[in-house]
């Protein structure tokens, strides 16, 4: 029995916009727009360099809801490049690129094998004229597959040396994501598959080492929470062993960064601190930075309220934008603990005391109906989470207290 080598990726989400990006200059926006494609190019390049036998992509190659033709055209080109190197591609569609939602009839080259429906089916991969592996999987026909699919995976034809399962769905323990095709790890492990190629969860995780059950995560961060390296796994299976290796593919990296402003008495010192911190993290990729600033509460709050922080961030962005591996701070938070309001204020019979007590109790939704009920705005505005509501109330409190106290 020979060995096989393949590349496992999922959740490409080609051409999907970055969530939570505002006020980016055109160059940054363009880079972000191109980032998923660059990551795809990297994937192809990796497959070629590593001389894999085939490539597995477990769902969510693109988003039907925001489906751009470009995504599929680029995908096709990537596949063509792989075809030119005689690399097969086995892909299944997931909840974002479900078959019935695809409006563009793009025909992929012959090296691409697609699982055609929700029935778990299999392809046999031939290497040097011999059947080397059997690949199992299914595609989402509709937006959701709610029932568990693990039980449908049954190994057939044991003469074939390797059996690989592709499954786009969520492990039941994970509640952060939409629960599709749920499974439990034990369900998978008890089958004798040599490799479980999972998809759907964007955070990469190795659920089990042997046999490998792996979420490769997405190949390019698209959300401020999708930080760090993003990529695929190169898997080498042989009779005796199984080697897995993570290869980063991202074109732009998202990073959380914290800057200490305690030593900064003036705002321009903070600017230097920020740039220093940013330059430290820049290595091979452009960076999108989610910056938190810690330091003197009052000073931070004052800078924030006066709009100085915003200015500093703008200046820093402008100065770091022109570099090859640029750095863009897309979000910043002064770590001001608004919740710590002087407890004495709560005690007083005076107006401020009355005010702070009032804000704690009130609900803000009715207050915002002006905008949220407006016909036009309703289409675009997103309701705040509870957490967000608490923060908003907190900030409002601070504005009021500051306003009243300083008069």
């Amino acid at each position, binding site marked *: 029995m020979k060995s096989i080598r393949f590349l496992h990726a999922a959740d490409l989400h080609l051409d999907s916009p*970055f969530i939570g990006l505002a006020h980016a200059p055109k160059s940054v926006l363009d880079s972000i727009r191109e980032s998923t494609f660059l990551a795809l190019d990297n994937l192809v390049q990796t497959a070629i360099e590593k001389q894999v036998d085939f490539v597995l992509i477990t769902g969510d190659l693109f988003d039907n809801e*925001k489906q751009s033709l470009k995504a599929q*055209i680029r995908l096709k080109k990537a596949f063509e490049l792989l075809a030119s190197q005689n690399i097969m591609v086995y892909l299944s569609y997931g909840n974002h690129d479900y078959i019935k939602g695809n409006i563009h009839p793009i025909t992929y080259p012959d090296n691409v094998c697609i699982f055609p429906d929700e029935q778990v089916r299999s392809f046999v991969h031939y290497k040097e004229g011999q059947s080397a592996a059997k690949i199992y999987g299914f595609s989402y026909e509709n937006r959701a597959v709610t029932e568990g699919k693990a039980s449908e995976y049954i190994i057939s034809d044991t003469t074939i040396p390797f059996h690989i399962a592709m499954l786009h769905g969520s492990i039941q323990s994970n509640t952060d994501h939409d629960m599709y095709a749920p499974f439990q790890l034990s369900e998978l492990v008890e089958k004798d598959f040599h490799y479980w190629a999972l998809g759907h969860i964007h955070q990469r995780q190795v659920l089990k080492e042997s046999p490998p059950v792996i979420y490769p995560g997405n190949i390019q961060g698209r959300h401020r929470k999708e930080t760090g390296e993003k990529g695929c796994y190169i898997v080498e299976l042989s009779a005796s062993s199984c080697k897995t290796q993570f290869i980063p593919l991202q074109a732009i990296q998202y990073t959380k960064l914290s800057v200490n402003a305690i030593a900064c008495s003036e705002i321009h010192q903070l600017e230097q601190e920020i740039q220093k911190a940013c330059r430290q993290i820049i290595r091979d990729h452009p960076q999108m930075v989610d910056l938190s600033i810690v330091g003197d509460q009052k000073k931070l709050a004052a800078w924030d309220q006066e709009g100085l922080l915003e200015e500093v961030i703008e200046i820093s962005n402008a100065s770091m934008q022109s570099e090859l591996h640029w750095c863009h701070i897309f979000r910043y938070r002064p770590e001001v603990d608004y919740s710590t309001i002087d407890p004495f*204020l709560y005690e007083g*019979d*005076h*107006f401020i005391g009355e005010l702070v007590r009032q804000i704690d109790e009130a609900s803000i939704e009715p207050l*915002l109906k*002006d905008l949220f009920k407006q016909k036009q705005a309703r289409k675009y505005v997103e309701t705040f989470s509870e957490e967000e509501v608490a923060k908003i109330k907190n900030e*409002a409190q601070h504005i009021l207290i500051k306003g009243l106290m300083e008069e």
Partner: protein
Amino acid sequence: MYIEKATIYGFGTWVDKTIEFPKLGPVVIYGENESGKSTLQAFILFMLFGLPPKQRNFYKPRTSGKMGGRLTVIDPDTGRFTIERLDTMRNGAALCYAENGAEYDETWLRSRLKGMTEQTYRSIFSFSASDLANLPKMKEEDLGEVLLGIGLTGSTAIHSLETSLESQINRLYKPSGKKPLINEQLSKLEARSNHLQSEKAHEATYREKKEKVLKLYDTIEETQQRLQKNKATLTLNERKLQALPDLKNYASVLKQLEQFPEKVPFPENGMERMQQVKDKLLPIKSEHALLQENQKKYGETLSSLNENFKEVDGEKLQYAYKLRKQAEEYLAEKKEIINIQKQKEQIENQVEQELDQLHIDLNKELLHEINLPFHTEKTWSQLKTEQDTLAIEQSKHVEESHQLKKDRTRLLSQAESLEENLLSEERVKELKSKIHELNSNNTGTFSDSELRSDQNTWEKWKQKKKKTYQAVFFYSLGLAILLGVIGTIVETYTYYMFAGVSIIVGVLQWWSGKHALTEVEAFTNAKENTSVTMVEKREAEQQLLKHENVSTEIATLEAQLKSLDHTFAGWQERGEQLKNRQTLLNKKIENERQQYSFLLGINVIYWPDVYHHLKHLIRQSREENRLTETLNQLESKQQRFFQELKVFLSSFIKGTVDKTQEDLLTLLEEWIQGNEKNESQKLHYQQLYKETTEQLHSAEKKLSIYEAAHMELLQYAEVDGENAFYKRANLLAEKEQLQETSSRLEQLLQPFLHEENTHNSLVTSDETEMVEHINREKQRITMLESDLENQRQLIADVKAELSQLESSGEYSEALHVFSMEKEEFQQSVRKWAVIKTAKEMLVETKRKYRDKYLARVMEKTNEYFQLLTGEKYQNVYAPVEGKVFQVETTDHVRFTVNELSQGTKDQLYISLRLAISEIMSEKHRLPFILDDAFVHFDSTRTERMFQLIKALSNKQQILLFTCNEDFIKYFELENIIQLKNSVRIN
């Protein structure tokens, strides 16, 4: 909370001052202006709430370095404690000392003050005249609201905050606005969304277009098939049309062929062969005819030629030839005769001419007789030479005699002249004596004139002498030359000798003469130079000398004469010899003249010339004779020849007698030529005749062969004549041609001939109809092709659109931009939400707060207002629903706050503040500070006011700062703190 004691270390004008506060009742702090009331007030506030460094610096006393102090207060909860603040310590922060000795910091103090800030304190518990003064400044409409604001919080902060928030909100969003940020973003978003939707719709056409492309491919396929079919039909039809004339042709050819006989007998290549035979036959025939004719002609000519010159036989002919030869000789001789005659004549002329020239006594006849032997020439020339020599010698001899005679004469004359110069004997003697005398005297004088005349004579003499000497010299020279010449002629040496002698004599004579002259001259000259006496002497001496010289000369001359005489004798002898020789010569000449008579008149010297001429003439005359003889011989020969010729010719030709010699010769020549010509012609024709006969034979042979072949051809073709043969040949050719055409057409029409039906239909079908059919087909094809082109264009267009869609990525870009702007919008919304929440909360709290406290505040206000106005007003109404404060008199008349007098307004304000303070003090009970708040009050109102204050001071400490001395009377002394020069009053 009560203030018990204030210890000022240093604050403004206050330094090291302690003020005790009364324990009960209001605290009236009186002081004139500039007494430090405000400073004290500020000190109290500083102690309670602290001051920022800048303000602390402001209150730093100029006289002391310390700034700060202590304030001892009594708190109802914690009891007495002292607050200490020092500028220099703890950055102005408070340190509190409790009674039990415990120390607390600022935070503890703040908790004692229940979170009260200076600001809040001032707005609730502090009230001054300036607060009242601020009122009119406010907008009248705002007054009620402001009053409420103060009433609720004790300051205008809420109001301004609210306004600020409102304006911020308005900047962010207005429900029906365009300008605010969120409104703008919304409209932008709307536009983006629309763009996005349209792009999406555009991309959605991708599927549609793809399908269209597939459909178009099908259509094109179908059209192409149809086109192919139509084209095939068209090609067939066109070929049919093309074949139509051929088919028709084929049919007619077949019909024609049927009319021909089955078999046409004709030799193979008959026409060609016939032609060949004829080609050979015809020239032969014509040649044959020509030859026959020639043979006949030649026979006739030959017989006529045989008739001519019948009588002539060979002998005669030979004779004629001989004559002709002789005639040639005759002609040559004739020419020779003429030549000879010419020569003869020429010679005769020459001889005559020469004879004339010679002018001697000779004629032609004589010339023949003269015979000149060989020695004659030499003799004659010798004679001539001799004669010449003799003549020269004779002439020389004569000349010599002349010379000699001349010399002699000259010498004689010389001698004569010399003799003349000779002094006489006496004279010589005299002179000699004279000289002698003179010599003895040793002096001699000669007169000048004597000398001069002497000199002149001397001069003349000298010239004469000179001439004489020269003449002698030249003569002797001439004689010498003459003698030399004679000597050379006569060849006698004596002559040369004489000549030499004469030259020597001449020279000597000339030299001696000259010498003598020189001497004489010298003498003469010497004479000049001497003195007179000497001149005389010299003259004498010269004369003597001269005399001697002349005598010497004469002697010389005599010698010369003697030699001359000798010479003359020789000359005479030679003359004799010459005469002898002349006579001898003359004898010889005479001899010759006798022999040749013609020499008589001719001088001897010309004889050699005559000899030469004669010799020539003799030769000429002999030649002449010889020529004459030859001439005679030739003439006789010619005469003979003519006779013979005449006899011969007369036998053939008549009338020859009269003819001249030349004519006869011509006749002879003509006769001979005529005869020869006849003979040669005869031979020529005989030859021709023979050749022609031979040719005739061979031609007849050939003719028979070809005629046989000709006959054979005709027989094979089964015809009688040549004409029929050709007719048959044509028939055959025609048939063959038709057959060939038919087979060619058969090949061409192969595809059509197979189908019997087509063949028939084609033959019968109409051409125009077929053309029409084809045209219709063509039209259909054109239409199909244009359809195809259109479809291809369409497919290219759609494909271009597809690739444009594939490469555009516009939707993708729009999506990203939209997403980002939506995020921006969301962030703005959040910002708005915060501010909106704040504002709404503020409003809400305000409402609640008012609801909670207003009733009680108004109740108290009402109470105090009644009290202060002396029950004039019974009710105060808080502003509701946009209305301002209203007050109601006891008569139930209501007035708005704006309608009140300033005093009443003040009363209302104070009532309101007091009420608020009281309500607020329920918990806090901080000292209430009044700072000259009653300036506008009259005594009644003031009294009422103070009564109220006194009453209130039971509940809370009231600090009343005033500069009005009148007020003091209203209070107990113990309650009054007088600030005067920093001296405590009580």
